């Protein structure tokens, strides 16, 4: 028997510490009793739950629970719509053959490169023309519309499903709609979960677009706008530990979800790759 080397394990432990340290530190900050953005020690002098109490205290300028609810609503609906859109785009461009298929593929690829920041103000006024600014619906629409251009991973998945399945069904007289819903979709669980997971996470991470759309409507903010807003010059020092607590509150469910759905994530992102 070959003697097992020790160094891989040691390297892993060191790397593990490096990767965990920022998260560990955020947790410590969230439970830190003393306020302040910078402290000269790692472990808090005393621990307390005050930051969490502060977070959930239902302050009208600071309705964290409401923000949490908004974010949840936006992410659920944009997750549903985005998944539908991404899967539709990917399926169409992977399985169906029609005149503009190649053009659409290339145009979508190019449009994806476009730095969206420049046009935020245009998006704002387009939404205003539809009278949608400062609504959660606007966020759902904006997030979902970007989903139309992020179909590459899902397309890679559909590419791996043998065409012969479709063909035999077609001979049996199935319509394309029936093939899509009865044959392809049931086989596509990993990619659907992957797409949904990515779409679900987006509203928790965007703080710029959402702010432009929501403007001064604090009760309609998502958590990321609210948390980011805490860190300006006048409030950063007093609210930093509360900010950390807020980060913990939003990171926790996503992390659990992520760990739970990890195998789908891996299956989804590597699907086109491994089998192809």
């Amino acid at each position, binding site marked *: 028997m070959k003697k097992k080397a020790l160094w891989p394990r040691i390297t892993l432990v060191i790397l593990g510490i490096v990767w965990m340290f920022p998260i560990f530190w955020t947790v410590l900050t969230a439970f830190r009793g003393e306020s302040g953005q*910078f402290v*000269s020690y790692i472990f808090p002098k005393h621990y307390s739950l005050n930051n969490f109490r502060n977070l959930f205290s239902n302050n*009208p*300028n600071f309705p964290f629970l409401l923000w949490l609810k908004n974010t949840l609503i936006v992410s659920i609906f944009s997750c549903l719509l985005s998944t539908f859109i991404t899967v539709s785009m990917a399926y169409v461009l992977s399985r169906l053959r029609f005149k503009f298929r190649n053009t659409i593929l290339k145009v979508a690829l190019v449009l994806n490169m476009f730095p969206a920041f420049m046009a935020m103000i245009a998006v*704002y006024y387009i939404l205003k*023309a539809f009278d949608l600014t400062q609504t959660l619906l606007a966020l759902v629409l904006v997030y979902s519309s970007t989903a139309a251009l992020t179909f590459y991973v899902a397309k890679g998945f559909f590419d791996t499903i043998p065409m012969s399945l479709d063909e035999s069904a077609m001979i049996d007289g199935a319509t394309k709609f029936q093939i899509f819903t009865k044959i392809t979709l049931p086989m596509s669980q990993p990619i659907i979960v992957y797409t949904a997971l990515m779409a679900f996470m987006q509203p928790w991470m965007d703080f710029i677009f959402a702010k432009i759309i929501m403007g*001064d409507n*604090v009760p309609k903010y998502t958590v990321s706008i609210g948390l980011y807003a805490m860190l300006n*010059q006048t409030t950063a020092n007093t609210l930093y530990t509360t900010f950390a607590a807020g980060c913990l509150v939003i990171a926790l469910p996503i992390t659990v979800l992520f760990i739970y759905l990890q195998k789908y994530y891996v299956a989804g992102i590597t699907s086109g790759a491994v089998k192809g």
Partner: protein
Amino acid sequence: MKKLFILIAAVLGVTVLSSCGTAQAYQPDIHVHTKDVTLKLWVDLNQGTYYRKVVQDFEKAHPDKNYHITVLESESGQASTNVQKDPEAAADVFITPNDRLGQLVEAGAVYQLTKYTSGIKANNTPTAVRAATYKGKMYGFPTTAESMFLVYDKRKFSAADVTSFAKLTAKGKLGINLQEAGADYRETPWFISNGSYLYGKNGEDPYGTTFNSAKGVQVLTWLGKLQHNKNVVPVNADEISAMQSGKINAALTGTWNAPTYKQMLGKNMGVTVYPTADFGSGAVPMKAFEGSNLYCVNAFTKYPLDAMQLANYLTSPKVQVGAFQALGKIPSALAARRDPAVTKDPVAKAVIAMTTAKHSVLMPEIPEMNVFWQHMNAVLVDVYNGKIQPAQYQATLDKFVHDVTPQKK
């Protein structure tokens, strides 16, 4: 016969666009003398609770009117951006730091004041009045007159030590933001202390910057030497923790940090005006920028008379004293500055002493300041870090003045 959906989309699109694109009316759209008035007010972060009470008082004081006033917190520094983004959706009355006034006026986003002007002029400090004025016209109701000040640990320094920069840094460590964004805000006034002009004598001449004079080079040289002074410590957001750990014993700071210092230093907290410094032409008081927060009326408001009345009420001496007590904001109204509640506070006393011509200078308001900040900070940080050698100081300042001066048309 194709694509039914595109057809439907086209029909939908037409209806939507025709609703949004209603013809531009070149007619004033304001309501005066109406009973029902809906107003939106933007106050700074953390100020909502106090101003909600103030607004309730305002509503009570006008029983003849049906006011519906919404108070929202919105970062004052961003007010200019937020108002310009969509003036129609912005607040009718909003708070903004005075340095953004020029851009707001140039963009046509604020109301020029014709009513209340004599009251504003009579009741506020001269600098606050100048802060509310742009190119000879008045645009805002001043509510604060603030500047940075010196905070120090009384255990380390005596009152005599903190009168001059040399004595101060001989005795203990002074923290200044020298390396990060915001260094410009601290250091620029020192050029003016030493006799240079920033956009002319009154800060409104785009071609009047003289930082590349011999006196300007003196200041830059002085700043360049700071990096070798072990008792001058670059700090920024970590200022308070640095003071706590003893890394610094004094700092140039602002009112937003005052409560934390009070808590930390207690009776050992000393506050006073900036010391004097010798930049090379004899000792002069180190200046700070004086700034004033203004309540401005949105040019797009439907109820200009009511909005102005509200803004005037928000900046009355009584409300300013209350704002000092609740939020620590140093008033601009002369009557409020004489109020015992204000005068007995050492921080307020220091700031009131700072906000005089001797110790501070009004931050220019012209839109060129936006360009100025970016260039100034880069030069100051590069000089402090030794990236620019003393031999290049003159050339650096020449290029700098060229960069921040608009091209003559």
